[in-house]
């Protein structure tokens, strides 16, 4: 399969006025790429299982899966150092798994179990795992951005080699919180990286209907003189390279970086979304840009090799599911705990 990528999608970094290509010096070895594939498949199979169990009526609340966006999660999270932290969104499973949280505990959280990463208090939209640097998935659009600015400020004030990363969608670039956070981060040169996952949709609203610059989100960063990098979010290697560069820049204390990542939402906004608003073509285009076959091709994997990866992913997910289902329900009155420290 030959994939065509628009010229604007090659990884490149530009700061206002200049446009410089990122050299692929950081390009990773094949072993690492295989690890990426492992992670991406894990996310994919995890999300598919979650869809299935939700439709079966097993999962409470509502959930958003990251199918199609696995390369972003894996590319960025793999580029982070052990002490780096991040904040996620309502679409948080991918980031959380990519960062190495135990799939069992992630799944258990979706089932509202004590063993869950948030001990059943959070749910799908509020995955936390401080040990893995996950300072919280946020169900309010833009809600996590100021905190990531503040954490990046703390790292800067204490002169620590740590970076705080924010994930958010294209839709989030329209909320005032986004604007205030980027402004403050740039002004104070906080150790922060802003990862905009432009998946072309904010719920049912296409980019062109919610942002005059939906096809070039980097313009948002220009409003603050913030360094920004455009990257093809379906190419995990490119994401990794751009993220490493961004993280190193932020880590050095020079200032924050905006990653303008183009990606695709292959499924509905939430599980069960009939997507009445979306054309068949658009869905097909999204599927066409699936990052997994692309990486598989890059690695030149045979069917058997790929199958082995896939089986492993299925195995982990099935195990996670079993773990979650046999998890412990919280005691009702535990609801009164953790309100205050």
């Amino acid at each position, binding site marked *: 399969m030959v994939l065509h990528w628009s010229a604007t999608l090659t990884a490149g970094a530009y700061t206002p006025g200049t446009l410089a290509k990122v050299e692929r010096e950081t390009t990773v070895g094949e072993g690492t790429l295989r690890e990426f594939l492992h992670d991406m498949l894990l996310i994919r199979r995890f999300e598919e299982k979650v869809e299935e169990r939700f439709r079966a009526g097993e999962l409470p609340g509502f959930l958003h899966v990251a199918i199609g966006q696995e390369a972003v999660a894996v590319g960025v999270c793999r580029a982070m150092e052990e002490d780096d932290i991040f904040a996620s969104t309502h679409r948080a499973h991918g980031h959380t798994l990519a960062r190495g949280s135990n799939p069992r505990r992630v799944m258990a959280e979706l089932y509202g179990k004590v063993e869950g990463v948030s001990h059943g208090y959070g749910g799908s939209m509020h995955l936390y795992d401080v040990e893995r640097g996950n300072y919280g998935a946020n169900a309010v659009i833009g809600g996590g951005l100021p905190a990531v600015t503040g954490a990046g400020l703390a790292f800067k004030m204490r002169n620590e080699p740590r970076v705080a990363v924010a994930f958010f969608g294209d839709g989030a670039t329209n909320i005032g919180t986004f604007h205030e956070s980027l402004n403050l981060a740039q002004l104070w040169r906080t150790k922060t990286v802003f990862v905009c996952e432009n998946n072309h949709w904010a*719920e049912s609203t296409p980019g062109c209907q919610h942002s005059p610059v939906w096809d070039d989100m980097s313009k948002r960063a220009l409003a603050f003189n913030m360094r920004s990098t455009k990257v093809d979010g379906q190419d995990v290697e490119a994401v990794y390279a751009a993220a490493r560069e961004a993280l190193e820049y932020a880590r050095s204390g020079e200032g924050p970086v905006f990653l303008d990542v183009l990606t695709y939402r292959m499924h509905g906004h939430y599980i069960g979304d009939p997507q009445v608003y979306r054309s068949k073509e658009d869905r097909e285009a999204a599927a066409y840009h699936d990052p997994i076959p692309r990486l598989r091709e890059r690695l030149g994997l045979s069917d058997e090799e790929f199958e082995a990866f896939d089986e492993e992913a299925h195995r982990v997910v099935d195990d996670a599911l079993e773990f979650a289902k046999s998890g412990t329900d919280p005691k009702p009155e535990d609801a009164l705990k953790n309100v205050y420290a």
Partner: protein
Amino acid sequence: MPELTYREAVRDGLVQAMRADDRVFIMGEDIAEMGGSMGVTQGLLDEFGSERVRNTPISEMAIVGAGIGAAMAGMRPVVEIMYEDFLTLSLEQIVNQAAKHRYMSGGQITVPLTIRTQGGAGWSPGAQHAQQLEAWLVHVPGLKVAYPSTPQDVRGLLWTAIHDDNPVVVFEHRLLYPVKGEVSEELEPIPLGKARVVREGTDVTVIAIGPLVHRALEAAKQAEEEGISVEIVDPRTLQPLDEEALVASVKKTNRAVVAHEAVTRMGFGAEVTAVLQHQAFDYLDAPIERVGAKFTPLAFAPVMEQYVIPHAEDVLAAIKRTVGK
């Protein structure tokens, strides 16, 4: 009388208002092609077109504020805040602008804006998608606040809100959307500030809003079996508040329970309690009981969530406390 779901009743109210007056238009996130995250505005894009059914970016401040500006300029916008938790993002405009323009201008400005929002727990949405924040807005002079509990009420109150010359915030409840109820053949406007006696009784008055009206009805039935006669009054509008109707009922029954889904502390029930104990002091045979959510954010796990929010049996228990059972 025809039956509609609460969702259909809201939609019908909007449709009728938009048909009758082309100054009325709607704005909000995902309200167009998708018909709103709760399906309330389905079909409106087809009928009224994209000029009058406007999908907005995720910009709660600008959504409300653009509504204010359009209203000042002679339109009658109805804006939707997808979840009332996101009122926290637009309060500046609601509280400092919409509520105060008329006053600060010494009467020159009119802001005929309707803000619809919804929320509510009981389906594990987690802590950021289930708050009940109506009490905040009752504290703000210049705003009117409605919280209808039935299809008939929501259609009639929404109509009145749209035609009122003041900013009105209408609270809907997520779990009420599928609930069916009789509505009048013709849309009957319901005045803001008029309570409704939902059920007559003699031993205790339950003043309930939103979903608690329905839970109170359940509780009342159970109470009846135990020989307690419960009157239920739904204020429907929280601001202006029909104090007279509430006080009259309590003067008759001599006991009161106030019930809502919001956190009890500093909830709307506190205000009602303060009013009742003042105006019906000599009539009260027992402390006024408050029923509301326990003092915690909403937990995700269903068992914990259910523990936090108030149910029919909580209303029943409160009823029994007032009659000493």
